[in-house]
């Protein structure tokens, strides 16, 4: 589903974010991307949704080489790849319902489809009863659920989560990760960048550790720290 082929990324300010990364994520897989801040986790995710382009190497998403992807096709890629962030990135002037519907409306989905799909996805993430509220009226966990709903409403093949529990208390973090696991169980490939040790250790899924932009460790059913299994 996602293949990194010898990917290096150097930002214009000279920072080496990724160095010769080779990684393959299968369809339907759940993967934790771990490492402390500044090791390249977010940069790796950004390469998948084409927020940045590798300096060398290539990323293949659903069989499409992103280096060959014209600018005009990036919106189509982003409909296949849902993204969730630590700061939720919800539109404050829209209600929860409107935020989720927005992802469909900007892609030209018919209003009938919008009316059908939005309630269903809000039900799935467990905030259907808050659909008329504005993001600032919700708790952090609820905002993250709204953000996940928005990322999922286009039925993406891949869900990328960049520190999804970074702003949440431990209990809410567990609930969000459990939700991600449920979404993964329905067939969506999920990649979660995190430094939440408790969550990673409890889930026992594939863990890829990045250190200085390189893959330092890659383990099935891994833990946050290597050698503690």
């Amino acid at each position, binding site marked *: 589903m996602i293949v990194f082929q010898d990917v290096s990324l150097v930002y214009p300010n000279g920072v080496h974010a990724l160095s010769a990364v080779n990684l393959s994520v299968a369809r339907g897989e759940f993967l934790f991307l771990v490492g402390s801040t500044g090791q390249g986790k977010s940069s790796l995710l950004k390469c998948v949704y084409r927020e940045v382009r590798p300096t060398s190497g290539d990323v293949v998403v659903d069989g499409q080489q992103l280096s060959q992807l014209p600018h005009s096709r990036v919106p189509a890629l*982003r409909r296949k790849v849902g993204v969730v962030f630590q700061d939720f990135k919800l539109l404050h002037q829209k209600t929860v319902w409107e935020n989720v519907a*927005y992802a469909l409306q900007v*892609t030209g989905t018919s209003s009938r489809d919008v009316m059908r799909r939005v309630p269903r996805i809000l039900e799935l993430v467990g905030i259907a009863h808050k659909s008329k509220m504005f993001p600032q009226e919700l708790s952090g966990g609820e905002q993250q659920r709204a953000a996940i709903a928005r990322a999922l409403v286009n039925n993406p093949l891949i869900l990328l989560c960049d520190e999804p529990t970074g702003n949440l208390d431990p209990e809410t973090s567990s609930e969000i990760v459990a939700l991600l696991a449920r979404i993964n169980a329905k067939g969506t490939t999920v990649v979660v960048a995190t430094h939440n040790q408790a969550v990673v250790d409890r889930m026992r899924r594939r863990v890829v550790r990045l250190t200085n932009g390189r893959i330092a460790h890659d383990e099935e059913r891994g833990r946050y720290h290597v050698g503690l299994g």
Partner: protein
Amino acid sequence: MTRNGVATTLDWGKVKFFWGEVAQNFTRNVTMTLTSMGTVAVSIVVLGAFLFARESFDSVVKNVVGQVVVAAYLKDNVALPRIGQLVAELRADPRIDGVKYVNKADALADLRRRLRGQVNLNIINTNPLPNAIIVHTRNPADVPIVAGLLRSRPEVAVVNYHSATYEKMVRMEAVLSVIGLGIIVLLLIATALIIYNTIRLTVFARQREINIMQLVGATRWTIRWPFVLEGTLSGIIGAAAGLVVLWAGYRVLSPKIVINLPFLPLNLAAVPVGHLALELIVIGALVGTLASLVSVSRVMASA
């Protein structure tokens, strides 16, 4: 309407969404929207006032230059049929707009009428004035050519068109026209930059929002349209507000200018006000549209 062979109907939900986005852009940050409209209005007032003054001044200059005539004073011994022939030849010339023959008796009567009460012309018992032909050209630039043509005729004694004054006026008209155009270009650039900068601020204030739209897979034009339309509407509404101010100023000030500053060479009545208003609205709309388009494209490119 069909697409890919499948019958589709107009989706009112989509229409509502699109115009809802435009309306939301407008009402979300009222202060910013009013600031950009106000900027357009003030710029349009300055530009409009200058365009108006220039148009009215221009028409005065054109009028003055257009009034220049060539007077050909004929030799006394030229017989009337030959004069008639000369007049007919001149009338056939495409460069010439009007030819008037003034015989010496009429010229004297005219002089008497004009100088009545000032000079006693009864002391003159002969008529010293020559017969004359007054020629008006279609294009003021042809005045010297027609004067030269007349001078070469054996019937003509003297040709007068106040050449020094004429040339000064033509030169002044050219210089004023270039200066006016230069000022208009500079004002237009300044107006465009001021409006662009204000609208850019309103777009940059929504950078986060634009980035989110891009993240959820909105196409470039889906993101641009509401902003571009907002820019167009801001431009039109701002320009209309500017025009209201200009119109009020015109109604209040123009009679006062005419009465109190008679030495100003302005011909306010000659300005095509409707045409000017339309031009200013188009300028407002264009600058608003382009400023939004450039700003939103820059924000999208930086994302």
